[in-house]
């Protein structure tokens, strides 16, 4: 085989691989671009039960309840516009608390409760998930407000 042909074949193979990879990325991104939801997104766009997503918002003060088994907790997540109930079975990260930001990974159940499989751990107090930047919990009104 001539070198020219060979290079042509390799170029075609590379091109096909590139296109295939691009398509794969595009399709995966199309699904996963809608990966992060705030409670308001959930309310307006709707999320089908069972779809793996990240839910981000603030833990509503006074909503945190421990179940009898000692390892399950129930809490509400809000972004100021909407609130959704969530539950989590496991050991909560050290910085998980009421009135503080949370990003939960999991899926919705049929009854509308968000079943979290993982609460994203923060490495330090100052860290705020980028998706939640500009949000703050108002101690007095117990509502979300924009950061001044």
């Amino acid at each position: 085989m001539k070198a020219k042909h060979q290079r042509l074949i390799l170029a075609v193979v590379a091109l096909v691989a590139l296109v295939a990879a691009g398509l794969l990325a595009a399709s995966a991104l199309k699904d996963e671009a809608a990966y992060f939801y705030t409670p308001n997104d959930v309310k307006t766009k709707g999320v089908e039960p069972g779809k793996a997503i990240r839910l981000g918002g603030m833990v509503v003060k006074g909503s945190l309840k421990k179940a009898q088994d000692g390892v399950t907790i129930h809490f509400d997540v809000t972004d100021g516009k909407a609130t959704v109930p969530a539950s989590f079975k496991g050991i909560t990260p050290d910085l998980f608390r009421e009135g503080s930001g949370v990003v939960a990974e999991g899926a919705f159940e049929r009854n509308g409760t968000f079943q979290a499989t993982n609460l994203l751990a923060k490495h330090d107090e100052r860290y705020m998930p980028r998706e939640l930047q500009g949000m703050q919990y108002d101690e007095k009104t117990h509502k979300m407000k924009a950061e001044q």
Partner: protein
Amino acid sequence: MIAEAGLAALWLAASLALLQLALAAIGLAGGKSELLGAVRPVAVAQGVLTAIAFALLITLFLRSDMSVLLVATNSHSMKPWLYKFAGTWGNHEGSMLLWVTVMGVAGAAVALFERALRRETHMATLGGQAAISLGFYAFLLFASNPFARIDPPPADGQGLNPLLQDPGLAFHPPTLYLGYVGLSVAFSFAVGALLTRQVDAAFARAMRPWVLGAWILLTLGITAGSYWAYYELGWGGWWFWDPVENASLMPWLAATALLHSVTVLATRDALRAWTVMLAVIAFSMSMVGTFLVRSGILTSVHAFAVDPQRGTFILALLGIYIGGALALFGWRVGAVREGAPFELVSRETMLVVNNLLLSVILGLVLIGTLYPLMTEAFGHKVSVGAPYFDRIAGPIALTLMIVMILGPLTRWRRDRMREVTRRIAVPLAVGTIVLVSLAILAWGTIGILPFLGLVIALAVAVGSVAPLWKRNLRRTPLFTWGMVIAHLGCAVSLAGMACDSAFTVEKLVAARPGDVVETAGWTLRFKQILPVAGDNWTALQADMEASRGGGEPVLMHPQSRFFASPPTTTTEAALLTRWNGQLYVVLGQEADAGRWQLRIWWKPFVTLIWFGGFLIALGGAMALIGRERRGWLLKWRARKAEEAFA
């Protein structure tokens, strides 16, 4: 005084780097070859000065000199000495100084020990190395001076993030940095070879040890980082698809591709332009990684230094170096002559496919990592997470494993399809038998990806030792052994990952002291909860006794630690390692009066993941030693022959 001396050493080193660049440029372009003679000593002096600057910074940390801003903000006089030492690079300025130091020392090593390169290419390489260093010197001296003073000095420092106070993490960043910077040497080699138009097999043979070395260190760094995340964060996982993790994965993928293509160039003199291109890409990925970690531009749970201004600086450096190298590549690629031809069915083709697949994974990971950044420019906040990466990386990585079986069983230059089929018949038959029997055994109990993973792991294991079949094992070169071991390591890691996701048993309970918890054949007796204290922390510790099948009980001590400076709580998991898996116990919070949350995992064969990573690095080290030793042997024989004739 020490801080001022350090700053002075840094300025001197920077000026020497400028001199080194000027000497090489004028010497090469102006044809003044007498100037070239000065390049090597200057490079060595520059390396020595950076090392002095770094040693002085370490001294400041060890002495807890709180009048230095960096020490005051990142250290504490009460900290154990190991973490004072490691704290030197556990921050932005220190890690940048470490970067420049490693570059300077590597440059000195290239100046002193490199013998295989032609003189002009050697000098152009040293000039290129100086040019890269200069950007980082400027970054340090103008934007992040590690020796800045603070007045008045505080009595005690702010301390180091407790998560970083772990022996694993003390040595993980320098290992990665050594790898990143090793790739900068490969980059300089490529630039040098392009400038002098000498891209050939000899150039590849000179570059290969550097690529191998960088790749070994990156492999070790990633393996150590993964194990650290697994045991220190208490979450039981080994990979998170976080931008910071991707930052080290991307250079590794590029380096793996480069490692294979440079071997083709060194042994068969093919893939010239592609290899040079990959060398440029590999270092670019190190820089992209540094940019991602240091700028805090992306969401990450562990982007420690968040400073947009510095991000801009690194972005500018990134633009200059990558843009410059790509422009040089475009300008000179015509001068890179075509290499040796090869047939379509040949090992070269297999390695080209390997390179393509690695590049595709690299591209997809890069897209996934940067996509949130791009959409945010248009006002959308998007996060790309594990589902995206799993979906793209899983299938391509499994395909790559199949190529990995075929590659070493194919001949260089030309081979016949029928011959190849005959050679892979044994692994194929074994694979099919195992597949069928496993499928019958495991039907419906494990997921499809873990199942495929196990099967392919087995096939790769068989396929990777197949090149040793019917060979005299004693006379097999160390380089071949290295390849076999590294490929076997991939199989071992893959098997560990598949076992972890298929067979892990998890139990979550709230237990009282005195309770007994049973899981996966293990009996855990929860004896008591006690307060304990360490050097700079206090903790609540659970005392547990683990036993299996009535065997001797082993004590386990999961802790919840509290650090006062900075105030942080960390989870210290207790691990019990057995040949067939790991028992992993995490102590949570007090659920209610007297009951404590406990999370217990039995993870069969999970340690294979990191053992495989270690094997991969070991294989690389064997290949490196093998090549170098052969070089020494040849030189020794040549000298003997000369003496005999004299």
